């Protein structure tokens, strides 16, 4: 059983609880164990870095230090948390002064940022540590009747100087996971585009236009569902779907699954167990 420190994303603790619930169900089946970090804080959601760059370094230096204390890599299942924490790690690794300031404060909690733990997405753990062959061998209910549109989202790909796992122009890890689970992955032009989440409350019309385009293409290519490794993308594509498609004058709908739910389905768990019934679009 390989162990990891698991970062609790705000959205998975409130609106998309089904993400962590489904990981809890199947982690042992794939020989991995996620140790939840209940002391971790919000990463700042790609906002704190400009509101206060130094608080940003402190908060995320601390999040990583919590994993380092356990001697484990920090695993994240929200794209924006991933990009944000990795950005902070890069800044801390590159600046001894910033690291010193952060570590002087972290001492109060008996913590230290050393830079020894890697920060990775759950998808990367499945791809690189568990491996697609091992996953294929564990599949109980192959997704063979499903045509699936993989929506990677931005912050698992860009900026590539911070992420660097998949080619941002031609990402493939999610496609390979779909195939390993027995599904058919569709050529989907919006796979590496944006969902519009980060401007939903500031420029709603623009955000919904962005989401509608991605939804429309998935409908046009006759996908059975969209799958995404990011709960923020899911919130727009599922929660705001009706509003986005209404604005775009599209009279149709498409289900959107979390990566963790898709894995759960193939490993034999039910929609009810995985929390799929909690989605807005069924």
């Amino acid at each position: 059983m390989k162990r990891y420190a698991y970062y609790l994303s705000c959205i998975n603790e409130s609106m998309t609880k089904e993400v962590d619930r489904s990981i809890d169900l199947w982690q042992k089946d794939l020989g991995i164990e996620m140790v939840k970090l209940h002391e971790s804080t919000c990463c700042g959601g790609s906002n704190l870095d400009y509101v206060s760059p130094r608080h940003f370094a402190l908060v995320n230096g601390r999040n990583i230090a919590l994993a380092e204390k356990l001697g484990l890599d920090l695993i994240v299942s929200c794209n924006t948390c991933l990009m944000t924490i990795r950005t902070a790690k890069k800044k801390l690794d590159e600046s001894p002064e910033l690291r010193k300031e952060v570590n002087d404060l972290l001492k109060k909690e008996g913590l230290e940022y050393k830079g020894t733990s890697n920060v990775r997405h759950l998808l990367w753990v499945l791809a690189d540590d568990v491996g697609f062959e091992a996953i294929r061998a564990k599949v109980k209910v192959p997704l063979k009747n499903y045509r699936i549109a993989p929506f990677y989202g931005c912050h698992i790909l860009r900026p590539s100087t911070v992420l660097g796992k998949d080619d941002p122009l031609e990402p493939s890890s999610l496609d390979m996971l779909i195939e390993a689970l027995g599904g058919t992955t569709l050529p989907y032009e919006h796979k590496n585009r944006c969902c519009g989440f980060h401007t939903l409350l500031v420029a709603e019309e623009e955000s919904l236009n962005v989401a509608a385009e991605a939804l429309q293409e998935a409908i046009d290519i006759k996908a059975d569902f969209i799958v995404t490794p990011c709960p923020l993308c899911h919130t727009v594509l599922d929660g705001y779907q009706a509003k986005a498609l209404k604005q775009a004058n599209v009279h149709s709908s498409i289900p959107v699954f979390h990566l963790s739910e898709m894995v759960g389905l193939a490993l034999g768990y039910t929609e009810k167990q995985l929390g799929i019934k909690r989605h807005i679009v069924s």
Partner: protein
Amino acid sequence: MTGATELHTEEKREITLRVHRFNPQVDSKPYFDDYTIQVEKGITVLRSLNYIKEHVDASVSFRAFCQAGICGSCGMRINGISKLACTTQVWDELSKCKEPGVIKIEPLRNMPLIKDLIVDMDPLVDKMKHYSNWIVSSMPEPEMGQKEFLVSEEEFQKYEKATDCILCASCVSECTILRAHKEYVSPAVLLKSYRMNVDSRDAIHDTRLGELVKDHGVWDCTHCYRCQETCVKHIPIMEAIHGIREDAIEVRGAKDTSGAKHAEAFMEDIEKKGKLVEATLPIRTNGMAWTLQNLLPMAMKMIMKRRTPPPPLLVKPIKGIKKFREMFREMTEHVKAEQKSHKK
């Protein structure tokens, strides 16, 4: 992938450029023309286009000038990605073709099309003007020519990378929000505004910033990083956009616009609970009236599915919040002390 290896060892081969064509005076809609030519390894996409124009079809229209990645004229989409034709090797593109040996050439997106591969840059220039993206000297007229402006190295480093921009508009072409709304300021314009606003010789910082925080301005960027990823000069454009936001909050305060309020809410919540209180985020960003009008129907659906974020009182602070708050507040003191010493 033996095919790919062979491609790289061959010195000469036949390739096809599938070029977007449209002449608004004759054509009812755009179409593609295929030009199959012999090219040698080391030839750029621009040289291939020049060859076609000279020897195959003189009517193909595109902009180009320096042929050295300096003037920014030959921005176009090559195999779907906005870049410069003059710095793009045909050989490098062959591995990215959807159809083997066929390189797709299209005009930049998000700008009106004039003909074939030529887009209208005027809307971009108009935005540069709208945001006054030039230096208005802070030196009094009589002193000009008498005195030097001294720029420290520290200051220059803030905008050194931004000055690499050659206005090729590749970032504009790839921008998510501009595609969703044509009035959006656009990344190249934000980069230039940032560059002017951090320049100590400039006198209109506050006016420019006042314009940038309005609708369709800096707060509408959705952090997709497509601009930065595409930039042919590898300029960290998002850092410039974040730089304007940081400046806006510092100079104009956190209650200035919905964008600033939204960003500041993260800071507040992290200090208070260690995590985000999502239930009140829309209200804190846009007020109660907006939230009721815009989100009520969706909130009802979410309640039915038990998807609503918990109300503030039910958001449990993280384990160890007291110690965390102490550290967080101490950092606030560090930042304040430094701001004070800066002002002195």
